[in-house]
């Protein structure tokens, strides 16, 4: 925290940027951007550089990635990264939702790019089936029909969608994190993206028939119980009948 405070003091530097980019923003926004920059200067600047230009052999440029990619990377805990590598994994986010939004606003103010969508990201239930069609065509090849993720080349993986929130799924489609392809708004319209989000969350929230689900692959769990408990009970009963007579 001392480090945070110390570096926050250095945030006086932000005035330079605030004056150049704050012209077209309201005062509330510029306050957010300022807070975002303070956080950026503490947590992100080492690898992404003071002007988001990136640092050779450390991190890529963030110019043009926009608030959307920033929100996804920070809210899923992938950034700040624990180590350099081809793949970052989901972990507990280092920032609160408000801090994440502030940093995203800062990145957006410097480089521009896709913004984080606002409002509900769900459609009504009539679009679930359509979302499912799009999911199977565009997403299921990597994330799997059961949404549990799948292996890619050279040890990389497509992550499970189990913990993903509406906003994270949407911003992932928008920004194409790491090796995921980008799905632009011309290719998948915002409404289509929302129908995919709705489909994923609906499937995750729906219950499996009977027993515990095993990726909805069938009534395996029930059969296991029948084998162990049911047949065990039957054998015991047969022995009991035999002993009685």
């Amino acid at each position, binding site marked *: 925290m001392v480090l945070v405070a110390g570096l926050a003091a250095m945030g006086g530097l932000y005035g330079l940027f605030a004056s150049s980019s704050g012209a077209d923003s309201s005062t509330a926004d510029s306050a957010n951007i300022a807070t975002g920059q303070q956080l950026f200067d503490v947590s992100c600047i080492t690898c992404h550089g003071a002007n988001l230009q990136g640092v050779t052999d450390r991190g890529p440029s963030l110019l043009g990635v926009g608030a959307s990619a920033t929100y996804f990377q920070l809210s899923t805990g992938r950034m700040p990264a624990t180590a350099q590598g081809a793949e970052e994994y989901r972990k507990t986010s280092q920032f609160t939702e408000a801090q994440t939004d502030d940093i995203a606003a800062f990145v957006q103010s410097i480089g521009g790019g896709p913004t984080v969508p606002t409002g509900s990201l769900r459609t009504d239930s009539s679009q679930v089936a359509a979302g499912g069609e799009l999911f199977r065509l565009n997403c299921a090849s990597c994330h799997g029909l059961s949404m549990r993720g799948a292996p890619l080349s050279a040890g990389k993986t497509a992550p499970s969608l189990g913990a993903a929130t509406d906003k994270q799924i949407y911003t992932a489609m928008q920004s194409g994190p790491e*090796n995921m*392809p980008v799905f632009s708004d011309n290719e998948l319209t915002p409404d289509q993206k929302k129908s995919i989000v709705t489909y994923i969350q609906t499937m995750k929230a729906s*219950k499996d028939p009977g027993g515990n689900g095993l990726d909805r692959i069938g009534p395996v769990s*029930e059969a296991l119980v029948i084998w162990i408990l049911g047949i065990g009970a039957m054998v015991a009963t047969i022995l009991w009948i035999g002993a009685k007579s």
Partner: protein
Amino acid sequence: MTMPHHGDSSSLSAEELAAMSPEQQMIAGAEADGVRIVHRRNRFPIPGTKAEKRAERGVSMFFLLAALAGVGFIVAFIVVPYHWQLPGESQNFRFYTPVLGGLLGLMLVLMGFGAVLWAKWLMPEEEAEQDRHDEPSTDEDKAFIQSTLAVGLQDAGVPRRSMLLRSLGLAGGALLTVPLVALVGAMIKKPGKQLDHTPYGILLPNYPNGVPIIYSTGIRVSADDLEPGGLATVFPVGYVSDASAPTLLIRLRPGQVVKARKGQAGFQFGDYVAFSKICTHAGCPASLYEQQTSRLLCPCHQSQFEVLEDAKPVFGPATRSLPKLPLGVEVVDGVQYFVAKSDFHEPIGPGFWERS
């Protein structure tokens, strides 16, 4: 001696046999087969006692309950809700399978109980012994068997009548070959011309500017639709559900350059490339695209294709590059829409040995 008991059974004369009750005959028959019934007692020597009636009722109760469970199964099959509901609504459907399984299981278990109790409560008590035969057969038995076989062969004239044997061999060979012709013949069927063209080729004569390319929704794909690093599954117009139609449209990231194969340099449009989505190994959709490493993966057998080398296979069982679609654009109302300038220049999908 191997068959003494059968020999012994003939020791009963016809009169003796006729004088026996069916039960005595059964016991004598068992004895002739080397099974001695040492203890046999009827549980109810006097028929129609209260105790017998009670036991009978007990057993039939199990069968009746089994029948009821069967009726319950049919009722549950019709009545219990089985439709999946949206989250938030009552999910009664999830009881459907367990209820059906439970009732069916109950029916079988009750029938089993009934059958076991029938034997335990109503049928006569019985204990039987059976001789254990010593191993191996005696030398005498072995000699008998050998000479029986040898004489059989002699009678058929196998060593002498070679013509008969050979013609029989030919007939046997024919018998084996006939099903083999059907099995192997089906495997070496030539695919003919059907793999030489995809819907792109079929449609080409109708579209002088090239075959329009659409999304699964039917909307035409324009040249500014995808972001760099973007991927879309696209189709020739009107062929969204055709097995050979799916095509991957990829927009490369800045700095990614595709090394085109000989004669296919003009197939790329700007930073867009399009490949057949059907893996050249076993025909799965090879659509796991890694936009940073520009690898396309097939999920079935882990074949990997390097997009920057014109989708050349770099890992896994696939041996052929993914066919590349010659991309072009057609300007309609000032918007550049993608078209296929021609069909794929090679067969799409899994390799076959009669490739033309």
